[in-house]
């Protein structure tokens, strides 16, 4: 489908920058004009300045590293487990049918429900949060991999079979490429979840990372710093998203959904 965009990339960047600028101005004006109490929402400039101060301290970057490490570790473990399990389950209809109900029951349990458990096991160690991340990301990727395995084009599958490709070969040459876009989608969703759950875990459990810094800032009344850290998490989130989308484009360049349509 042809994309209806508002002009060329340069124009769009200008529009986008305008949008961000308006947002900034709103957040700057609202507290100063007294629309929102200043001690609840400081002006945007003060927030950014507080962020700058934070960023010049080593503690901030240590926290960032902790958060990234937590998220990445959890994501990696979950991804490998979910892809392996998902491909196996997805390719065998009987397994799919049998595991369906279990997945549906376990899936809605939010990772935060496990917080009491992991705290009892690991305390405020970074491992607590990693377990949460693994749990949350696992479901995201698994669901997508299952969609992908099911979506294999029957024609392609039959063609492969008629050419004598065995189960393993079919898995490699037909099922996997079909599932790949879904796997990447799962990775993208899971990456976002990994970041969110890492920070949530740090916030609630107190394990080392940006989330804990935010909680500390809040309880000690350093309001601009707290907001500054929130902005930092937003920026990291955007970076993660952009990064995964770039990866998606690179890996799936051949896929029709990503390829630009040739006009008829």
């Amino acid at each position, binding site marked *: *489908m042809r994309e209806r965009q508002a002009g060329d990339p340069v124009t769009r960047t200008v529009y986008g920058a305008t949008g961000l600028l308006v947002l900034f101005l709103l957040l700057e004006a609202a507290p100063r004009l007294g629309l929102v109490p200043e001690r609840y929402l400081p002006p945007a400039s003060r927030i950014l300045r507080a962020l700058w101060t934070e960023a010049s301290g080593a503690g901030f970057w240590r926290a960032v590293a902790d958060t990234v490490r937590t998220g990445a570790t959890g994501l990696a473990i979950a991804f490998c487990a979910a892809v392996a399990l998902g491909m196996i389950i997805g390719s065998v209809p009987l397994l799919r049918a049998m595991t369906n109900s279990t997945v549906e029951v376990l899936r809605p349990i939010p990772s*935060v429900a496990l917080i009491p458990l992991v705290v009892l096991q690991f305390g405020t160690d970074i491992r607590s949060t990693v377990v949460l991340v693994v749990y949350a990301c696992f479901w995201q990727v698994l669901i997508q991999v299952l969609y992908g395995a099911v979506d294999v084009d029957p024609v392609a599958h039959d063609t492969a079979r008629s050419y004598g490709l065995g189960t393993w070969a079919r898995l490699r040459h037909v099922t996997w490429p079909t599932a790949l876009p879904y796997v990447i989608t799962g990775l993208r969703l899971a990456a976002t979840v990994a970041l969110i759950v890492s920070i949530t875990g740090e916030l609630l459990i107190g394990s080392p990372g940006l989330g804990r810094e935010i909680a500390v800032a809040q309880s000690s009344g350093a309001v601009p710093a707290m907001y500054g850290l929130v902005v930092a*998490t937003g920026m990291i989130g955007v970076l993660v998203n952009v990064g995964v989308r770039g990866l998606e484009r690179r890996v799936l360049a051949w896929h029709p959904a990503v390829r630009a349509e040739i006009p008829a």
Partner: protein
Amino acid sequence: MRAAARLVRVLGLPVALVLAWWAVTAGEDNFYFPPPTTVATTFVDVWVSGRLLDDVLPSVGRLLAGLALALAAGVGLGLLIGLSPRVRAVFEPALEFLRAIPPPVLVPVMLLVAGVGDRMKILVILSGCLWPILLNTVEGARSVDEVLGDTCRCYGIQGAARIRHLVLRAASPQIMTGIRQALSIGIILMVISEMFAASSGLGFAILQFQRGFQIPEMWSGMVVLSLIGVTLSVIFRQVERRVLAWHQGPRKRERAEGVRDA
């Protein structure tokens, strides 16, 4: 025979898992992982009493309120933004940034802004559920089929009629995806919003149990959470099937003509 086979498929694995759990915990008395029978009895004791009304119902009520607000705001704004390429270009970076902020992080912020009551909790839920619905609506609105759009233009179906008959319907699969994501986020935030400075609610209760080392009670709380999630999921699926009945048709035909069963 058919019904029996289906029952085995649906219940087989869960029952096996529960039995395995029982077998593992029957021997020793693990403090952190009580046997399923204990959890079951605790469940009845704790929840099937006043707790249900005092804690669970208000929590779920707040969740639904937050979701309803997110739906209204998300679809409304999503349509506005999604229908104009220019508006989209302006809002896109700002929205990408705002949605990347993990909602739990806003809880301390909300505490400051909205205090400790119901309003804060609903606001927290709203702040998390809004984004999937909003962004998916934008996506759905902007990817309406061109030929369909041209057809409606030719036949004079413009303005509100166009939104009603064309855009909303065409975007509905995407919007439903957004709502599904919002459901899971909502449950999480419902719990989190009560873990801070709350005095009642499901999340608060679970936290209490954990602090007081009442492990079976804590587990039973997680069971309640799971039940809520499953129930909402089932209800949602029914609604989705009804709303997207037209969408299933062509897909079902494709699937039926293939060998796979979905």
